[in-house]
């Protein structure tokens, strides 16, 4: 058990260091310098801009050699300091991310969990019914291959612009400030539906297809035939097949997490939903090194953590892993 988690932990640490390094390096390969943008936007008189330029270069620590910047970055990181945003100067990156994270949780967790549950249930069901398999499954194939952004725009156009059913921009009404009132929660919910739906629908298709294929495969496995030969009821055979088919789907969830988060970024941009994805786009456009680093760092930690949880879940769900670990111990 300890060896299993020890190895896993080591892999996670190495992944973390590599990912954070890439995260730090990429914005710095972009042409230009973020202080230039800051100055350009200020529209200063030239004589003042000169003074302000050196002031900001120093304030952001951009006037030291690149290796020193890298070192400073790690030192600050261990102090929990993600720096100050350039785009939203002088707000600390941590504060900006904290404001965005609730929206990501609100959007991502329900979308991931519900689509996984519903997709698997439906896939297993579809594998049983020829009629469903011939109608819904092709649709699921199409959905699964749909880019998040495209579906998002389609939904926004259809439900928002054409039918005026739902709002398609922002997280709640412009006339409100967050509060514990029904009208606010209602507004929040209305704004949440379309981005949630575009994430849910695409993922739902993927899980349904995966499950359907797995069930068909499992029903052809020797143990299923053996059970059937013993005269076990169909329901029992199905239930075993479902349990076995679920394992690769859990692995699939771990593998898919990165892509889902990526999809959520696109969705947030389409619906101007103020989560991390929206921040990342703005950070790239404004060459905000620090905000980009911080947002990506948050995603890296999130994905690694989720993977770790799935690893744990695997131990609970698959008895073989447990037996294997006990053997080792």
């Amino acid at each position, binding site marked *: 058990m300890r060896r299993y988690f020890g190895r896993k932990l080591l892999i996670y640490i190495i992944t973390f260091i590599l990912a954070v390094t890439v995260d730090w390096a990429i914005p710095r390969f972009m042409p230009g310098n973020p202080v*230039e*943008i800051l100055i350009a936007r200020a*529209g200063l008189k030239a004589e003042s801009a000169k003074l302000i*330029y050196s002031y900001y270069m120093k304030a952001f620590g951009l006037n030291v050699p690149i290796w020193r910047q890298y070192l400073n970055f790690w030192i600050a990181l261990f102090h929990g300091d993600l720096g100050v945003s350039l785009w939203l100067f002088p707000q600390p990156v941590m504060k900006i991310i904290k404001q965005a994270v609730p929206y990501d*949780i609100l959007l991502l967790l329900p979308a991931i969990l519900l689509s996984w549950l519903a997709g698997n249930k439906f896939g297993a069901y579809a594998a049983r019914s020829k009629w469903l398999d011939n109608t819904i499954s092709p649709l699921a194939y199409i959905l699964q291959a749909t880019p998040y952004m495209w579906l998002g725009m389609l939904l926004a156009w259809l439900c928002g612009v054409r039918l005026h059913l739902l709002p398609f921009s922002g997280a709640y009404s412009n006339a409100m*400030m967050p509060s514990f009132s029904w009208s606010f929660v209602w507004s929040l919910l209305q704004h949440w539906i379309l981005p949630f739906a575009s994430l849910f629908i695409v993922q739902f298709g993927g899980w349904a297809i995966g499950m359907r294929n797995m069930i068909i495969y499992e029903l052809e496995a020797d143990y299923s035939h053996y059970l059937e030969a013993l005269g076990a009821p169909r329901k029992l055979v199905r239930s075993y097949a479902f349990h076995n088919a*679920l394992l690769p789907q859990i692995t699939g969830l771990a593998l898919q997490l990165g892509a889902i988060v990526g999809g959520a970024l696109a969705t947030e941009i389409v619906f101007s939903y103020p989560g991390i994805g929206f921040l990342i786009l703005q950070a790239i456009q404004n060459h905000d090194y620090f905000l980009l680093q911080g947002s990506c760092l948050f995603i890296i930690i999130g994905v690694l953590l989720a993977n770790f949880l799935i690893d744990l879940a695997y131990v609970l769900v698959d008895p073989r892993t447990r037996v294997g670990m006990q053997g080792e111990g």
Partner: protein
Amino acid sequence: MRRVVSILLVLALLTGVLGVTSVAAAATTEFPRSQTLYTGGKQWGPPSNWNPFMTGNYATGTIGLCYETLFLYDPLTAKFTPWLASSGKWTNSTTYRLVLRPGLTWSDGKALTVDDVKFTIELGKKTTLNFSSLWSWLTSISKVNSTTLDFKFKTALYQEWDNYLYNLPIVPQHIWGTRSLTDVATGANDKPVGSGAYLYNTYDQTKMVWEKNVNWWATKALKLSVAPKYIIDLVNTSNENSLGLVLQGQEDLNNNYLPGISTLLTGGYALHTYYPSAPYNIAANTAWLDINLQKKPMSDLAFRKALAYGINVADIVSRDYNNMVQASNPTGLLPMWNKYVDQAVVKKLGITYNPAKAKQVLAAAGYKDVNHDGYVENKDGTKITLKLIVPNGWSDWMAAAQMISKSAKAVGLRIVASYPDFNGYLDARLKGTFDLAIDNQANVSNSPWTYYHFIFYDQLKDIPTTQGGNYGRYNNKTAFALVTQLDKTKTTDLTAMKAVISKLQTIQLANLPMIPLWYNGMWAQMSTTYWTNWPSSVAGKNHYLPVTWNGYWNMTAILMLTQLKAVKQP
């Protein structure tokens, strides 16, 4: 399995509740539509600071709604209106006497006095602020009496000083005096205390909310009252989104360039623009072509002349902009500066679209199509391919760049439109690595000096850090000296100003360091669904600027708010 499912469902539900509770932290507020003015167009990110010294970055209205300036300037009539000041004049060639209005107050109730003014301007001497360079020609500020200050100058730069008079925000000493200098220069200044017509109410990631200051000094002193109880400035997300909001009447005033507004005016939407017909908007700045004079063949005047003859600006105006802009005067001076245009010089030297002339100039200068590919080659036979850069996503400029490329092709010049991201574009100009670029950074102001200071910026080595202008690196000591001479000319001496400007125009038109193209507008789409009596060019209406951009509130936009009338909702 069922247990796992129910656990997951509960988890999903919990996160939902968690999400809601963490979002909903502030007090209950909903803003009544009929008393709220929704604006948009300035803010491209959530409000992040209210520091009036951080120009360009502060939340919409920080200067104008909250902090105020000594004067207002109206570019349409070229007049200064005393605001915090009651008057100001030069008592001798290097002393400016400022008299402050009596009875001014800060929004916390304390009096606004000359000490605050003196303190504010002296902050620029103590630390690096956006106006610190003032102190290289200002010597001292002395208090004459409780309402009067004397500013003593080493060198009086009259044109520039007038610019400061309506751009410098005055901050309260009793709050800013206790702050560290770093905090003054770069602090967020949360919950700002100003003297203006509006008070900070709240903000979130999508908006800034200002609330009417019922104790505003101007109510008593000038009988002015702003109409909207709340001003909610929405953060831009995209032009499509803004257009949707304006058409649905959800945004009352939008200051983005929204293509096709001219066609929507008659579409049954409750839309209003300053001019009822083309160009619909007041001109705000000149878009011109930056030419990199350090590179061949742009260093050749004949080549630049051919280029100027070869650009069909009228085509850009009509097809790209749908006549929402006007073609620029060859001098590039904005329409409100028409009186400074020396028509004789323009008639003699001004260049407008003439493809035949362009070909003729090219041929005469020795640029010939040697390999018969339809494009002229350099004098030594090498190919000419010039890149014209505009920032990616600036769709109107991207289309204009393509049109320039097309009309250049017709006279045998190969110009390729290229769209780097904004920072790439900025960097190429600052480092001088571009060939051609569209630029529009010199905005409307109290004096053409700001425009000439930009196109003839003389500190060529410092361009990468100062962004002072002159990206083509035009080097002409005479022109530079004239710009300084203009700065030192009294703003009341129109004849002297015109004489200097005429010389500058001659140099500009004869040497073509850049090519003026068209006037970008003060884009303003107003919806008459909830508010009326918007600024309009029509006689009898108010002629204030309907613009929420930084620096425009103090160019009379604040007065627009005093004229608005709420529409009675059925």
